[in-house]
Structures are given as structure tokens and as C-alpha cells.
């Protein structure tokens, strides 16, 4: 036990017991971030803020929501949207926030890919980030079921049905997930539990891990430059702020993040109050009806690309059914981003536009993902089905070719 002096102030009293001084230094004032960054480096803070907004609005919704097939729809659309003071505000923030958080996640993720921020020591940052992507996807999917509208019901039906394609255990697995032979009250209640407890807990843990994973390899910078953070930090602390390559997290880095956050929130609130249909599908304002299939069933926009990979394979190839092929491709699509650090065989950590081959790969991927997303929503008939097939094949081919493309690049640049 350490010896305690009589504290002279309340601050000192707490500092003796909690090490506030040290904590603030480690977490804020002497947590070093590269100076050479652009606004894309603010996405992490944006996501933290968005997640906080989702938690807070979610807590308010939780006070009035009823996870019961007979009450869920009206508890959302009548009680929360029309009776509870500002209930509509929390619902709008929650629904639009859930959609926009994925937009920022995608920007964050493709920033990482563009600048090569997943390799040479940053593998765990990438892995933990991808884990968060999967957890957020599960959170989004489970939450979408709760208002118990037509799209809630039928999306749940279609997505849980996917697991039925798994060999041997598929049929049993679907029943186990649904808690019934069809999407029912048991399904709603268990997805409610997942949405408000288990997955948020896992997300909180994964966020802490993601932040922690940043500490040792440090944040990447716009040029992909590696330098000695300790030396640069010394320079900064000695007063040579202008020549140091680093800035402290607080206040320098965060001041820029708050500025980006301000304008981002302006955009976000515009969507929340005036332009929310993209996140609150009109079809979902019809109450769930298991006997009435909607003309078009589609998931939320952020799942469309992987949904299209799933249904892109619509015919049998070499005796394997389209359904099985789609399922295999879908499973690969979920896992393949995790492997980025190992699929990229080039040692270059540079923005993609400075990498001779990778730049083509990157923009090709962007285009293909947009095509997949758009065609994931359109009805899969006629030419659309073939576009879906071609873009799904392209997606898989891109990832299969990545090691070869980057290997060739490594050779060309001579290991630099």
C-alpha cells in the first residue's frame, strides 16, 4: 500500500486515488496522433458520437416499446411516434442514425483500405474494426425487426431462411434461430434481447478493444509514413510544435474532429427531420402480415451489396444449386474483408493513388460495390439477374486476384 499524504484539494484527493493526472495524459494530452491527416481521420470520432446517439435514443425508445407481436407495431407507430412527448424525435434519430452509422462505417473502412492502414503492425486494428462491422450488422438487422412492419417481418423471414442452406444442420438451425417454425413472437422477443442487450454489450467491448489496438501501432497518416512517435512527441513537448509530426489527441486532434462533426451533424439532422424515407421504408408502416408477401422484399441499403452476392447465383453450376452457390459466395463475402492484411502482399503503405496496381483494384472494387448495391434493390428479373451474377463474380474475382495484383506491385516497386 502506497503512503498517502494529506490532500490539499479535492482534485488532489481524487488524483491520489485515481491517478487523474496520469490518466488524462495517457488518454488525452499525451496520446499522439500524426499531424499529416485529412478529415477522413475524423470518422472514428463521428462513429463514437453516432453510437452514443443511438444508445441514448435507444434508451428512450426502450421505455415505451413492447416486444410482442400484437403490440409492437402500435407501440412504435402510435405510442412512441404520436403520444410520447418527442418520442418521434428519438425514433427518427434512432432509425436514421442506424442507417447513417453504416455510411460512416463504410467511409471509415474504405479509408483504411485506401491508405493501407491494415498492414505492417496494424492488423489487429483492422480485425477489431471488421468485428465491429459484423456486430453492427447484427445490431442493425435485429433492430429492424422490432417495429414489426411488413419489411421487418419479411426481411427477417428471408434472412433467417438463408441459414437453412447450410448442409446437414440448416433446417434445425433455422428453427433454433427463430424459436419456432416460422417468424413469430418467439423470434421477435429473442431479437429484442439481442438488440438491446447482448449485441450492444459485445459492441462496447469491441470498441474498447478497437481503441486499445490503436495504441501500439499508432494511427496511420495521409502519406503512409512511418516515424518514431516518441521522438516526435518529445519535440512537441519541448515546444517545437510546428516541426513535430504529431499532435496530441486533446485538444489539437479533437478540435478538428469537432469541426468535422459539426458539419456532419448538420447533414445528419437534415436527414432526421426532413429526409428520412431512405431509412424508414414506407412498406414498414404496414403491420407485419405473414399471409401477405410484399411485391418487393429488400434489406436496408447497407446490406444490399452482400444480399446481391447471395442472390447473384441464380442457376445451377456443375451440379451445385444456385442457392448453395449464393450461400457460399455470401459467406465468403462476409469473411473476405477480414483477410485484407494477408491478401495484400505488397509492402507499400501508401495512399492507393500512389500504388501502381492497387489503385486500379481499389476503384474497381468501389464501382463493383456500387453496382451490387443498386442491383441488390432492383427486382432480380431479366437483365438485372445477369448484372447481379456478373458483379457477384467480379466481387469474388477481385479478392482472389488481390494477392497476385499486389505481389506484382511489390515486384515492380522493389519491396519499397
Amino acid at each position, binding site marked *: 500500500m502506497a503512503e498517502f499524504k494529506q490532500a490539499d484539494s479535492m482534485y488532489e484527493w481524487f488524483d491520489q486515488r485515481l491517478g487523474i493526472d496520469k490518466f488524462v495524459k495517457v488518454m488525452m494530452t499525451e496520446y499522439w496522433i500524426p499531424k499529416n491527416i485529412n478529415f477522413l481521420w475524423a470518422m472514428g470520432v463521428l462513429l463514437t458520437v453516432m453510437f452514443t446517439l443511438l444508445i441514448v435514443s435507444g434508451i428512450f425508445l426502450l421505455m415505451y416499446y413492447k416486444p410482442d407481436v400484437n403490440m409492437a407495431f402500435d407501440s412504435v407507430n402510435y405510442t412512441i411516434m404520436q403520444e410520447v412527448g418527442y418520442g418521434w424525435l428519438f425514433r427518427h434519430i434512432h432509425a436514421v442514425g442506424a442507417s447513417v452509422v453504416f455510411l460512416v462505417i463504410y467511409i471509415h473502412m474504405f479509408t483504411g483500405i485506401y491508405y493501407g492502414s491494415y498492414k505492417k503492425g496494424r492488423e489487429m486494428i483492422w480485425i477489431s474494426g471488421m468485428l465491429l462491422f459484423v456486430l453492427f450488422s447484427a445490431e442493425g438487422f435485429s433492430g429492424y425487426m422490432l417495429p414489426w412492419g411488413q419489411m421487418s417481418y419479411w426481411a427477417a423471414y428471408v434472412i433467417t431462411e438463408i441459414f437453412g442452406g447450410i448442409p446437414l444442420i440448416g433446417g434445425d438451425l433455422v428453427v433454433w434461430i427463430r424459436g419456432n417454425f416460422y417468424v413469430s413472437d418467439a423470434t421477435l422477443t429473442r431479437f429484442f434481447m439481442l438488440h438491446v442487450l447482448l449485441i450492444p454489450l459485445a459492441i462496447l467491448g469491441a470498441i474498447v478493444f478497437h481503441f486499445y489496438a490503436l495504441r501500439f501501432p499508432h494511427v496511420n497518416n495521409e502519406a503512409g509514413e512511418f516515424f518514431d512517435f516518441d521522438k516526435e512527441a518529445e519535440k512537441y513537448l519541448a515546444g517545437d510544435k510546428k516541426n513535430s509530426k504529431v499532435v496530441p489527441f486533446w485538444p489539437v486532434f479533437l478540435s*478538428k474532429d469537432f469541426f468535422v462533426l459539426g458539419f456532419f451533424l448538420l447533414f445528419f439532422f437534415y436527414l432526421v427531420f426532413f429526409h428520412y424515407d431512405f431509412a424508414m421504408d414506407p412498406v414498414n408502416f404496414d403491420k407485419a402480415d405473414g399471409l401477405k408477401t410484399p411485391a418487393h422484399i429488400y434489406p436496408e441499403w447497407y446490406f444490399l451489396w452482400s444480399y446481391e452476392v447471395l442472390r447473384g447465383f441464380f442457376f445451377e453450376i456443375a451440379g451445385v444449386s444456385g442457392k448453395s452457390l449464393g450461400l457460399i459466395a455470401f459467406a465468403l463475402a462476409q469473411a473476405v474483408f477480414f483477410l485484407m492484411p494477408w491478401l495484400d502482399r505488397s509492402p507499400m503503405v501508401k495512399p492507393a493513388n500512389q500504388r501502381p496496381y492497387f489503385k486500379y483494384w481499389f476503384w474497381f472494387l468501389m464501382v463493383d460495390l456500387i453496382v451490387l448495391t443498386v442491383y441488390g434493390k432492383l427486382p432480380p428479373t431479366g437483365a438485372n439477374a445477369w448484372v447481379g451474377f456478373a458483379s457477384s463474380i467480379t466481387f469474388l474475382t477481385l479478392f482472389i486476384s488481390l494477392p497476385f495484383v499486389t505481389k506484382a506491385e511489390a515486384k515492380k516497386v522493389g519491396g519499397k
Partner: protein
Amino acid sequence: MKEFKILAVIAALVGITYYGIEPYAHHVMHPEVKAADFAFKDLKNVDTSLAGNVVNGKVLVEANCLACHAIEAAGHPATIPNADAAAAYGVVPPDLSSAGRIYDKNYLANFIFDPVSAMHLSHKYPVGGAKAFPMPAYNWMSPQEIMDVVAYLQSVTPKVAEKDVHKATYDAACGRCHSMSYAKSEATTPKDAIKAYMGATPPDLSQYIKSRKEHYLHGFINDPQLLLAGTSMPRVGLSEKAQEEVIAYMEDIGDSKKAEREDVGLRVMLYTLIFAILAYLWKRKIWSEVH
């Protein structure tokens, strides 16, 4: 400058994706149909330029309509309860008090001449079919007589106060078949009767302003067959003004917080803008020390 370029690239990627999954996909899944026609130009059986005679109209209405219809506003209340009326006719016959106010004149005249063709329901009630529409065609009346009836109906319709008009029009136009639970209003025709009469229970309209949206409702109410071929919902024949009142009522009930939302929205955005400007100034000050 470079940051603006990056922003432009992201805006372009997001914009293209948004266009594809929202306006474009919507256009593919819901193709545009013919514009709403509030003159009901397809109905030409009655010459509506004839001036109607209210006195003669009164005689005709009392002789031909009152056996089934109430006209509360003219002192003719319903003679049997709704449940009995529904059992007798399939659906509760409308009280005609507001007919002169909510229906288009041309539609109303042609409806009296031949209800089934005016409602666009010949697929449900084909000539010589097993089922007949409860109201007979009055095609034996002369155009002048029909216009007399229309003139009379227009003369008895009471003026509705501005604040009640949305609900009054909705009740008269939709309330016999549709319930609206969020307004605590139930269809005046009993549930089982209306289900048997229409073939399915007409949907509860509480959230239709959100699930169908104003644009769709505008076309659908004017002529349901155009957007949902084969539906047993009739073309109701509302005038443009009456239809707007119905849609306004659906919004009053289904999106009751709209005004509050738009007001709060502007305030929140203004506040956020001030925050963003302050944050920018602070950022400039802080970064001037490190650049």
C-alpha cells in the same frame, strides 16, 4: 483544397449510390401511371351543362332515393341501424347529406346514371353476373332529371366549419368501409359484413399516409384500378378539394407531429450550424499553433 476534392469524391460515390437505390429503384418498382383526372372525362352519359331544378330534384329524390338513403341534413335520418342496413344491402348505404359537397358534379351525375361504370367496378359486377351492385342504375331518368337530383343534393349539403372539414369529408367518403384505429374510428359497416361485401377486410388507414405517401394516395383515390388493377375498392369520385381534405385527415391522424417535427428540425439545424462555426473557429486557432 485537397480536402474538398476528397469530399467531392465521397459525395459523388454516395450520390450515385443514393440515386440508384432510392429514386431510380422507386421508379423501376413503381412505374408512373396516368395522372389523376378530377374532371372524370371518361364519363359522358349525362350532359352536365344542363341547369338543375332544385324543386323538381327534391320530388325525384324523395320518390327514388329515400327508401335506402338517409339525408340527415334535409331532415331524413336513417330508419334502420347500421348492422341491419349492412345485412340488407351488404354495405351501409351512404347518408347523402354531404354528397353534393364531396363528389365531383360530373361523377355524381354519371354515378346516378350507372354506378358500376362510374366506379370502374365492371370486373366485379359484370352485366348479367351473379352479383349485382346494391344500387340500381337510374339510366331511365332523363339527363335533365338527373341534373335536378344533383342540384337538389348540392342545395341541401350543410356548410362544414373549416376545423372539422377534414374529418367530415373522410367520414363521409371512406368511413363506411375503412377503420382508422389511431383516430379511434371504426367502419360504420360491421366487420364481418364489410369483409363479405368487399372480399377482404378493407385496410385500417391509420398509417396509410406513411406507408403509401401522399403522391400514391393522390392517384389511387382518384382511380384505384390504375395503381391496383382488380381491386374491389371503387373509384369514389371525390372532387379534388374533397380528396385533398381526405388526405389531409390521414396526415392529421397518421403524422400528427409533422408541424412539430419541421419546427424543431429548423431549430436543431440552426443550433448545429452555430456549433459547427464555433468548432471551425476553435480548430483554426488551435491548429495555427501547430502548422
